[in-house]
C-alpha cells in the first residue's frame, strides 16, 4: 500500500478536527410535486426526451423491418417479443434489451449488465429498443433506487445506467443534435 493513502487520510483526520456548522437545513417542503398517475407521466416524459413509444405489436413489426441486423440480450421477454438476434452488438443496426425499471418522474429507463445483456448492447448499436412491462414503471428516482437495492444489494451488476432519451449533444452553439456517440434512437415497447 503506498504511503500516500495514510498521508492523505491523516491529513483529512487532522483537518476535520474542527467541524463546520451545517448549512441551511432543508424544510419539509417537497422538492418536486407528486408524480401522480405514473404511466401517463412516464409516457409524457419519455416522449419529451425524444423516446419513441411503440404502441402495438403491429407498430413493433413495422419498426423492426428497418433494421436487418439485430442483436438481443437473450432474455425471455425479448425473445418472446422479438426472437433471437443473430448479430453482435458491434455489427447490429439495433440492440433489443430488457430493463430493470422505468422511472416516471424523468421518463427514464434503467438498464444494467444483468437486465440488459451486458454493457455495450444498450449503447453501441445506433438504435436501442427496450421491451418492458407496465408493472416495471416506478414513480420517481427514489423509488427506483429502492427497487434496485431490493433486487441487487450485496450482488450488484458491474454497471447500471439511467437512460433518458437517445444520445445528444448541444456542444456546437447550443444547437441540440440528437445522436452523438450513444444510440440515435431510443424506442420502447410494452409487452403486456
Amino acid at each position, binding site marked *: 500500500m503506498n504511503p500516500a493513502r495514510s498521508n492523505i487520510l491523516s491529513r483529512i483526520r487532522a483537518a476535520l478536527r474542527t467541524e*463546520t456548522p451545517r448549512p441551511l437545513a432543508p424544510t419539509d417542503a417537497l422538492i418536486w410535486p407528486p408524480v401522480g398517475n405514473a404511466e401517463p407521466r412516464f409516457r409524457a416524459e419519455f416522449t419529451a426526451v425524444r423516446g419513441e413509444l411503440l404502441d402495438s405489436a403491429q407498430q413493433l413489426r413495422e419498426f423492426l423491418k428497418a433494421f436487418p441486423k439485430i442483436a438481443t440480450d437473450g432474455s425471455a421477454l425479448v425473445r418472446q417479443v422479438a426472437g433471437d438476434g443473430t448479430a453482435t452488438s458491434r455489427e447490429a443496426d439495433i440492440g433489443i434489451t430488457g430493463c430493470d425499471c422505468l422511472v416516471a418522474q424523468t421518463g427514464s429507463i434503467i438498464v444494467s449488465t444483468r437486465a440488459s*445483456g*451486458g454493457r455495450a448492447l444498450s449503447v453501441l448499436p445506433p438504435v436501442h429498443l427496450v421491451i418492458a412491462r407496465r408493472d416495471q414503471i416506478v414513480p420517481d428516482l427514489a423509488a427506483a433506487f429502492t427497487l434496485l437495492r431490493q433486487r441487487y444489494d450485496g450482488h450488484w*451488476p458491474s454497471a447500471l445506467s439511467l437512460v*433518458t432519451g437517445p444520445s445528444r449533444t448541444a456542444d456546437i452553439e*447550443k444547437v441540440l443534435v440528437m445522436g452523438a456517440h*450513444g444510440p440515435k434512437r431510443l424506442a420502447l415497447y410494452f409487452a403486456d
Partner: protein
Amino acid sequence: MTASARQFIRAATAKAANPGHRAILENNIATYDTAVALGKTRYASWENARSVAAQIKWNAVNHLGLYLEQFERAVVKNGGRVFWAETAEDARCYIVELAQQRGVHKVVKSKSMVSEEIDLNAAFAAASIESVETDLGEFICQLRGEPPYHIVTPIMHLTKTDVAALFHEKFGTPLTATAKELAGVAREQLRRVFLSADMGVTGANFLVADTGMVALSTNEGNGRLSVSLPRIHVVVAGIEKVIPRLEDLAVLWPVLAQVGTGQTVTSYNTLVGGPRRDGETDGPVEFHVVLLDNGRTRLLADVEQRDALHCIRCGACLNACPVYKNIGGHAYGTTYQGPIGSVITPHLRDACEWSHLSYASSLCGACTGVCPVRIDIHHHLLHNRRNAVQRRFDNPFQRLAFKAWFWAMQDATRYRVASKLARLAMRSGLALPFLKPWTQCRDLPVPPARSFRDWWRREGRDGPPGRPNSSGAARPAGAPYQQHK
C-alpha cells in the same frame, strides 16, 4: 505582480475588448438561461433541492475519511483497485505506468476536469500513447490544441462556422455542414477509436461510498462507451467527489442536470462498480480508481472555506458571472475557471501566484445565488483577499495607500481635510494622472465645491421640513447629473 496575474490581465483585457467574443458567449448563455428557467418550473421547491444537496455534500466532506475508506473497501470487494495519489505527478505516473505495463497504445477519455488538472494527455503523449478525447466539445478542443473553455461546455467560445472550418481542414467535410452533420462526422471518427481503444479513462461526477460505485453523467454516451469497450477502465477523481449513499443521487442527479444544462436529468447517468463480474458478457477486465488529493486536503483544513469542496462542477456560477461572460474561460489560465475556480485555485496551487483571480470580481454575488449546493462563493473571494493581505502578497504601494486612507478615516477632522484636498486635486486637474485607470474608458464627474456635511453644518441642520430645492439640495427634475471634465 505575479507572472500569472500579468498574463491574466493581458488575456482578460483582450477578450473583454472583443465584442464578437462577448456576443458568442452571450448567445450561448442566453440559451442556457432559458433552458434553466424552464427547468425550474418542474420544481415545487428549488430552494429545498439546494438545501438537501448542500446537506449531502456537507455530510460527505465533513466525514471525508470515513466515506473514502468505505468507498475503497467496496471497490476492492467488487474486484477493483484503488490508488491514492497525493500529487498530480503521482496520479499521472500511476496511470501512464499502468498503461505501459498493460501494453496500452490507445486511450479514450471521457470528460474529466481532473485529467486536465493533472495534465494527463501530455503525459500520455510523452509516453507515445495516443489519447483521444471523446466528448464532442473536448474532441474539438483537442483538434485545436486548446484547453476547454468552460468546465461543462468546452467550446462555448466557438461558432458552428468555426467548427465547420476545423472539420473541413481535418476531415474534408464541407464548410456548409450543419451542426447535425458535424456531430455525425465526430461520431464516425470516434466510433472507430472506441472500438479499438485499449483503455478508457474517465472522471467521476460522484463516488458512491456505500456501494463502491463511480457515477458518470454524459449526454453523448461517450462515458458509457468508454467504460464498456476497452479492456481497462481507469477513473481519476478528486477525493471530494465521494458521497455517502446511492440514494443521494435521487437528488444530486437531477440538480446537477438542472443547473448544468436545464435538463431534468442528463441523458446517461451511469454507475460503474468494478470490472466485469463473473457471468457478464462484456466490460473491462480491470477497474482502477485513482483518488487525487493535489491540495484538496489543504482546502479541507481551511474551516472557513471548506464548503468550496462541496462543488459538483455544474458550471452554474460560470454562467452567472458577469466577469466570466466578458472574458471567457481561457483568460483564467488555469483548469478551474469562473467564480469557484477563483476561490479554489489559490488552495490547490500556489496562493501567491493565483490570488489575483479573487480580486478580478466585482463581488456581485450572482454566483452564490445560483450555486446548487449553497457554497458562499463570493464571500470566499473576500476571504482569499484577506488571506492575501495577511500573507503580505499585496502590493507595497497599495498597503501604504490603505494605511494612509485608514489614518484619515479614523477621525472626522482628518477625514474632512483629506477629502477636501482630494476634491481640490480633482477639480484642479492635479489628480488626473492617478485617475487614469478610470478615465481611460469613462468620464469622471467634477466633484462639487461643497460636501454634504458642509451643507448640513451651514443650513441643513435647521432646514425647514419637507421643502425641496433648499439651496444646493435636490436639483430640478431633468437637470443633468453632474458637470464633467
